[in-house]
């Protein structure tokens, strides 16, 4: 296997990790106004992802950096070509990140309501748009002979890509709801279970149709079993959620998202951005990649540090493994007109 292919796989791994990890914290953000009827419940939800969302988000920064380094042409063409969706994603990630940090630092309902909106839209937009963008990449875009992608908004909004967006949106909500069943106390926990089952009514058909469509239109022979297992994991996840098996159902949606991502990248290979104008204009693993020396250097860096990163991220998940409950987040008398929330005890062991 040549180094460019190795790096295609590495970038697929980074995006897949991103979708699995940030997928659930997007889901939690989207469910915030639905499940968090009282402020204390919204805080339970936010604190359940509080220590880890930032680390999850670095996966996308690393994926972007790796594309830049390993496939400059792919990075350049795709990032400039998907200008508007990426602009929206950036705005969403900005307000969302600030919202998590700032929401608890004011003390009026209006203040918190604004940040709640920021968290909702900041989660919902990327959850939909990443699906839209990646479906369009797999479907192919009007890339010309100079490797320039000139597409209007209309080009992005085809049925396949819209279904892709709906699939990531609904899968992430389902994934986030199951995360909440696993990580929060009552009443959020049971509400999240109900929400998961309701979301499944959209996520299962959308996911199944999108996967099969991807397979039929763009898939390889070897992606058939991947699609089958992804669909099976999705159904199993819902069934386990019905039975109240929280950890396993969450593992199943993680597997579904991971395998769906594998399906997309597998269908793409060996192209990285197919052209709808002329197959000769396709950006491929071979023509978009960096030279072997850069790829070798990057391989060593990734081989040494990616396991280290995964190790300490896993440890941080372990440290914050306990459920967050209402009791952990009690209203505390305010100090001198300030917000008393900072004095609230943390979700303790």
């Amino acid at each position, binding site marked *: 296997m040549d180094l460019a292919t190795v790096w295609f796989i590495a970038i697929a791994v980074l995006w897949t990790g991103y979708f699995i990890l940030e997928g659930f914290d997007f889901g939690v953000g989207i469910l915030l106004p639905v499940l968090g009827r009282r402020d204390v419940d919204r805080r339970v939800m936010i604190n359940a992802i509080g220590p880890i969302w*930032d*680390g999850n988000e670095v996966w996308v920064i690393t994926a972007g950096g790796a594309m*830049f*380094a390993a496939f400059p042409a792919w990075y*350049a063409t795709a*990032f400039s070509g998907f200008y508007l969706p990426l602009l929206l994603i950036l705005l969403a990630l900005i307000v969302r*990140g600030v919202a998590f940090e700032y929401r608890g630092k004011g003390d009026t309902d209006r203040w918190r309501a604004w940040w709640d909106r920021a968290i909702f839209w900041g989660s919902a937009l990327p959850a939909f748009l990443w699906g839209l963008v990646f479906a369009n990449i797999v479907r192919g875009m009007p890339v010309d002979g100079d490797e320039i992608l000139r597409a209007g908004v209309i080009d992005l909004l085809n049925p396949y890509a819209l279904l892709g967006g709906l699939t990531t949106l609904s899968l992430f909500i389902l994934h986030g709801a199951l995360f909440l069943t696993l990580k929060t106390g009552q009443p959020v926990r049971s509400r999240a279970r109900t929400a998961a089952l309701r979301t499944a009514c959209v996520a299962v058909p959308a996911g199944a149709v999108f996967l099969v469509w991807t397979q039929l239109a763009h898939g390889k022979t070897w992606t058939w079993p991947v699609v089958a297992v992804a669909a099976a994991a999705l159904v199993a996840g819902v069934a386990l959620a019905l039975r109240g098996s929280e950890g396993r159902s969450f593992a199943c949606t993680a597997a579904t998202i991971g395998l769906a991502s594998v399906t997309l990248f597998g269908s793409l290979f060996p192209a990285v951005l197919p052209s709808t104008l002329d197959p000769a204009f396709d950006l491929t693993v071979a023509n978009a990649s960096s030279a072997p020396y850069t790829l070798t*250097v990057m391989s060593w860096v990734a081989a040494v540090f990616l396991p280290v990163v995964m190790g300490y991220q896993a440890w941080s998940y372990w440290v914050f493994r306990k459920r967050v409950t209402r009791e952990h987040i009690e209203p505390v008398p305010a100090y001198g007109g300030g917000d008393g929330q900072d004095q609230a005890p943390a979700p303790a*062991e």
Partner: protein
Amino acid sequence: MEALDLARWQFGITTVYHFLFVPLTIGLSVIVASLQTAWYRTGRHEYLRATKFFGKLFLINFAMGVVTGIVQEFQFGMNWSEYSRFVGDVFGAPLAMEALLAFFLESTFIGLWIFGWDRLPRGVHLACIWLAAIGTNLSAYFILAANAWMRHPVGFTVNPENGRTELTSIGAVLANPQAWSTFLHVVSAAFITAGLFVAAVSAFKLWRARRHGDTGEKGVEPPAGDHELFRKTLRAGMVVTLLAGIVVVYSGDHQAKLAAEYEPMKLAAAEAHWETEEGAPFSTFAVGDTDSGVNTIDITIPRVLSFLATGTIDGTVQGMNDLQEQYEQEYAEYGDVDYIPNVFIMYWSFRLMIGFGLFGVAVSALGLWLTRKRRLPRTRWFYYAAVAALPAALTANILGWVLTEMGRQPWTVHGQLLTAHSVSPGVSLGQVALSLTVFTLIYGVLAVVEAGLLWRYVKGGPSHVVPEPEEGEDTGDVPAFVY
């Protein structure tokens, strides 16, 4: 108006804005970690209160640095696709390393620090803030190595087949003299800024307490420990600034010498130095005609520029007119290009950077003298100066980047790629105008929100964040920060 112009404005605005927060993150992470170390070692409650108080201000600032940083990475691909295509092989590597080695470290351990107060053993928890601080400073190295490469490209060749750069030595890119020299300069400037932040907040609190005898509301006694706490942090902030000031001067001098060697046009523009000269004088005030390339008024100190640029008083310093001629011949394939950056901006940003930056260092030196042996000045001007030094330092940081980036023009990669050839060909004027508008608006709103929060937490003081312990109470049970 072209997409190119707006893309440059957007890069300028988003980068300058990002860099309001970054220096504070770089310096405050280490200062907060040091305060927590002091608490860990002595067990004294005031250090814990200082850690939590400045830690809160640090986090308010940190969030802004993180979210505005994502824009920077995406922006290369979105607005500067031809640049990205040309340099990705070389420039992408330090960026990817930054994410993998530094950002993961920073963001994972900051999460552990924020939420881990009562869940981790104290030593482990302390290690978390140090790891976050290391990640932050490490990220500065990688991004500055990438930036240094644009000014002094090393360790690469241009592939004649596809016209892209190719990396030949990662060691050369990471050990680029411009990289480590810039790193020292930027990081020491960051410590000046963060030291002044701590000093300014402390001075403000001490002044308020002196005037009102309280921490914000008239008639309420301030917690007894506050005075002592802020006296200490005032001095600590000033010590950090003073030490960093020494490094900033040393590295700044080194930067000038490197510029003379690798970017002579930048140095000449920063000095409004038109003709090549031996024993060149340092200009202190100049008014010139940039079209005809002469200064009409120029008040100078003889031979000082030669000394600063070359280390000898009669060394040769190249002038802009000669460099323009030289570049026109050397890069004839680009046609008629003006290789002289905006001299007015270069000249004044250079001087104001030095002035604003050293103002804070001088205030700190003076402040340390005035506060020796537990003294505190009574005069109001001292407190005003300490507070004013912070915006001055932030301005100096920005002017430093204006100098660096505008001084590299018309190149994105010196001698290799013109800015005019770097922009995304497929992105329309309307798209860039839209993104420039929304970024500017949202950044403006967030600036107001952030400033408001900082103000609120500074006014609230340490008691707002962590209560005074009751008599005999164990101070070890520390409540965590919770969203």
